[in-house]
């Protein structure tokens, strides 16, 4: 895919192919088991039968980052963990996405002011695609975050050259 990416003009054929590739990607986003703190419990609840994550195609949690598409950073990130998060992110193969789940991953959360080892938001360490607010966010909120990510993937262009202005 690497040689073909962003090489083609926008036309009916590439739009259709892009749509198909995006549909394949968004229907099978496989997350990595990466619960850090309290949000991890809500992430587990999302994966279970009541708020089923598998109906979005995202139910296959992979333990290894090399087999995962999505890193849901669920919980507080501190300095000791930040270096490991960066390493795990680097180990994930492209295309990869990150959801920052919860107030701590979004911006430091309740530990913002006096947490001396807390990183104020995981976006200081890895690039984030979707932020889900809450402390912890309801499972429905995480599902909405996943749906927003799916919309984002749907809008992305794989084969098509991005449009140039002027």
């Amino acid at each position, binding site marked *: 895919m690497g040689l073909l990416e962003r090489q083609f003009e926008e036309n009916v054929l590439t739009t259709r192919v892009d749509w198909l590739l995006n549909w394949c990607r968004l229907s099978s986003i496989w997350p990595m*088991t990466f*619960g850090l*703190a*309290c949000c991890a419990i809500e992430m587990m609840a999302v994966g279970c039968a009541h708020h089923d994550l598998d109906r979005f195609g995202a139910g296959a949690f992979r*333990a290894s980052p090399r087999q995962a598409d999505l890193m849901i950073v669920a919980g*507080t990130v501190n300095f*000791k*963990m930040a270096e490991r998060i960066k390493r795990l992110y680097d180990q994930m193969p492209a295309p990869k996405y990150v959801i920052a789940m919860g107030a701590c991953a979004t911006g430091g959360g309740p530990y913002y002011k*006096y947490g001396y080892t807390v990183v104020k938001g995981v976006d200081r360490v890895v690039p984030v695609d979707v932020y889900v607010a809450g402390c912890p966010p*309801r499972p429905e909120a995480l599902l909405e975050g996943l749906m927003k990510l799916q919309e984002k993937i749907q809008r992305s262009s794989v084969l098509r050259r991005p449009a140039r202005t002027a």
Partner: protein
Amino acid sequence: MVEAKTVETQTLPQSAPGEREFMLDVRTQDMEVNMGPQHPATHGVMRILVRADGEVCTGAQPHLGYLHRCAEKIGENVEWLQYLPYTDRYDYLAAMNNNLGYSMAVEKLMGIEIPRRALMIRTICAELNRIGSHLIAFGTYGLDIGAFTPFLYMFREREWMMALFEKICGARLTYSYIRIGGVFNDAPPGWLSEVERFCDTFEQKWQEYVDLLMVNHIFVQRTANIGVISRAMALDFGLTGPMLRGSGVDWDLRRDMPYELYAEIWKDGVFSIPLGRGEHGTLGDCWDRSYVRVMEMIESIKIVRWCLGAITPGPVIADIPKTLRVPAGEAYVGIENPRGELGHYVVSDGGKVAVRCRVRGPSFTNLAVLEELMPGALLADAVAIIGSTDIVVGETDR
């Protein structure tokens, strides 16, 4: 440090006289394997540096601090009432118990009396949360061993319990409901009868868990005679909770140093304290600890039923000013968390902010025993041992 061992010559044991003898020059080396911080079976972000000779673990060193959130520093910088949400977040599986421990420590310094209805609701919430926490311990332990179904089953009950808590205080996981002086607000109408319905249904489901996992041949073989903690080891390491009771030590703060309503409840003969008995293996093995947790769930239901029968209308919070100034002094209060003794040691100088708010998390103390248990175990058993300690890394690291 890794040591290289050299085995210079080896004669195969089956060679009969006259058969060629094989000379093998085999060098083996201990391997250092990292379990975590990202690992499906470490119950959170914890790293265990395991030294393994093939499949046998020869040494284990837990590394903590990947979730250190400076809770104690925050306690010295925010006001007494503002600290309550932080207490939810160390043992996030039993948040009501954390709120209770902190509130009790501050109430001890203030010397105030809690209204009886508040005590009843507090006990109901704490025991329901104990059930929720043991459900997770049980479900994730099955997941670690390799049984996926109990995990889904237990989340069914846990969703119901979380729905009950959502009705009473609006939050599913981190409640901040049990406040200094009582509870935040009264139970909405119909809540108590819903709790009773939960108790009725739970008793049947509980029997399913026992039949599904606890007496399952494979589970027993994976957990019996593994990770044996003797009484002397348990006391030396300062273990509390199911870790201690699984080794047959009869100690439960709810009975032996009762707080809130537990003295009354114990006197009425409502609940008993399950102990490990070495039924399927050695006393103090992983199965015994799991057994204690599963049996404690049904004892908690009995306590909740007693409270439902004895609860009376009344106020639910004592009169606490909005800006609280706690009288000078220091107090330590230990309560029985699902994981052990959760202690809060608070020091006040009479101001709006604490001088010291120390949290003694049971998981932190319980985890230290891993350095003793892992050497000699197979790597698959190492996972079983870690799961049986039932730690929550939020409490280990605070």
